[in-house]
């Protein structure tokens, strides 16, 4: 285990060290101490390493992650795992706005709650939130899966494309063009696998599925009031 203390190591040195790990590195386990809300921590990683951040982080922790597994033992600021490509990011606490924004792949797990716009413009990432998500979550979501064990706020899935949304609790309101859809066997299988990977204690049958009604895919003036 390599330990880096941010009380004595600056952000650039930390990120350069983590980004510099080759594919076949033997140093696969890293621990970061005293993050103290630093922004852009552990961003741009691209190696199969495991990084545990002991504490809470600022904006964009694990941004654009590839391959790496990043765990934050505290809470994460806005844009955690934004544009993630692959790998796994786990937040033990809560996540602020735009968690997993525009993510292309990989798995983001938030064990607490996620704030507004969770999964905004997601492009293939899987996001599992053990608690609740705030308003406008999955706004313009294109691909991937958002699983919420708790409740969802206003305007869930507004203007979404092909992303799949699964919510166990209540949905305060659905956004434009987002509708409840039938939960078919393949969705239950997918959900079971996601819940398992995210270490979530829930049964797929407890969830409802939401997706795009695909009514806004082509611009029609008769839909103008939907926007």
């Amino acid at each position, binding site marked *: 285990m390599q330990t880096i203390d941010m009380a004595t190591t600056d*952000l*650039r040195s930390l*990120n*350069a060290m983590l*980004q510099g790990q080759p594919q076949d590195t033997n140093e696969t386990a890293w621990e970061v101490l005293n993050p103290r809300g630093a*922004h*852009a921590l552990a*961003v*741009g990683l*691209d190696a199969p390493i495991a990084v545990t951040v002991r504490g809470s982080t*600022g*904006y*964009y922790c694990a*941004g*654009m992650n*590839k391959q790496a597994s990043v765990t934050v033992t505290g809470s994460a600021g*806005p*844009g955690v795992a*934004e*544009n993630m*490509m692959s790998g796994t990011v786990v937040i033990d606490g809560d996540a602020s*706005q*735009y968690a997993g*924004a*525009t993510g*292309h792949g990989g798995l983001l797990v938030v064990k607490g709650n996620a704030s507004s*716009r969770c999964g*905004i*413009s997601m*492009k*293939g990432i899987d996001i599992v939130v053990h608690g609740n998500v705030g308003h406008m979550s999955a*706004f*313009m979501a*294109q*691909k991937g899966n958002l699983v919420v064990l708790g409740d969802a706020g206003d305007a869930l899935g507004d*203007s979404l*494309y*092909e992303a799949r949304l699964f919510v166990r609790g209540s949905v305060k309101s659905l956004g434009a063009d987002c509708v409840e859809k039938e939960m078919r066997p393949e969705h239950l299988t997918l959900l079971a696998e996601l819940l398992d990977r995210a270490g979530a204690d829930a049964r797929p049958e407890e969830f409802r599925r939401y997706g795009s009604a695909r009514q806004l*895919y*082509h*611009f029609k*003036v008769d839909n103008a009031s939907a926007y």
Partner: protein
Amino acid sequence: MTDQPPRTQPRLSATFTNDVNSEIRRAAATGIYDIRGGGAKRRVPHFDDLLFLGASISRYPLEGYRERCDTAVTLGTRFAKKPIRLDIPITIAGMSFGALSGQAKEALGRGATMAGTSTTTGDGGMTEEERGHSKLLVYQYLPSRYGMNPDDLRRADAIEIVVGQGAKPGGGGMLLGQKITERVAGMRDLPVGIDQRSACRHPDWTGPDDLEIKILELREITGWEKPIYVKVGGARPYYDTALSVKAGADVIVLDGMQGGTAATQDVFIENVGLPTLACIRPAVQALQDLGMHRKVQLVVSGGIRSGADVAKALALGADAVSIGTAALVALGDNDPRWEAEYNALGSTAGAYDDWHEGRDPAGITTQDPALASRLDPVEAARRLRNYLAVMTLECQTIARACGKSHVHNLEPEDLCALTIEAAAMAGVPLAGTDWIPGRGGY
């Protein structure tokens, strides 16, 4: 036979012109606003309204074919470890694969590289055509984040965070279904054939304080190597420039309302934003007030057509200019050779702007393989290279006439204005006077 009294000629309204009435009829028939490509077509004060004074007894000129007049510009000197050096102060603006064909993107890359300058990706990610053929490629970081990934960020030569563009400050992108082919859809993670809306705001930051952190993240991902540009549409150029500097930009790209777009509402293009001429002095003033002029470089775009326009933008304080529409015309856009086909589409060469429909006879703003194949990327690139060379020669000609050994030595004192409006916007005297409207209490 009775004599008829004389009649006045039929008189057309200056308010309800034929253009206006045709749009009312179109709106009444369809119930939807007009969408088109390009920039503002209305007449606005522009570089045509400025003149250079040239040398005289107090200023002596440089010899045209004997004395050097340098044109190189380096962008990104503030924080980037690897600033980019351009041989000429003219760059190619961001235009997407999707809006343009792969051949057109390749031609832009080849032409810019031959001319010693950079080209720019657009809303839709980086293609191999343009990366492979562009020695210097600026990678746009847009609200949609289509195709965004850390590998392309790292193989770019600079990163341009797009906040807005001159044709539609405050507006997002639009790419209609006809152009969302399988390849375009794949790059954007969208279903084939849908009408695609690009967001108008970034999904994970709002405001200058967030932007500062976003820039930090991009620098951390790319090892602080790449120059980071911030592109804004002409709206509040003084404050947008100052806030971009505060957020940590290396370069500011400022796009006036004549700057083009692939597709937006005509009402947006014609009625939102500032003319390019009105943007430059406030932006330069902001840089000067912060002690950052020439340290944070300013790239101006929107209606640049000739070496004279380049020289005028530089004289007002820009470090470089960027061209989009003019580059497309150089490639072959709106060429009269396709007049019959433009007519068949209800348009005419020079006016064709239905770029969003993907039926461009010149094969540039299309994803139709047959139409796209009409553009030979190698020949089109040569035309672009020639055009960039002519603009550079023209700019040097003017600079030497003003006694400048580098085009950056051009200054507002080399200019006068033909109209009061242009004098006020450019902050230079009305021709034949020492009057700058708005200065000194007048």
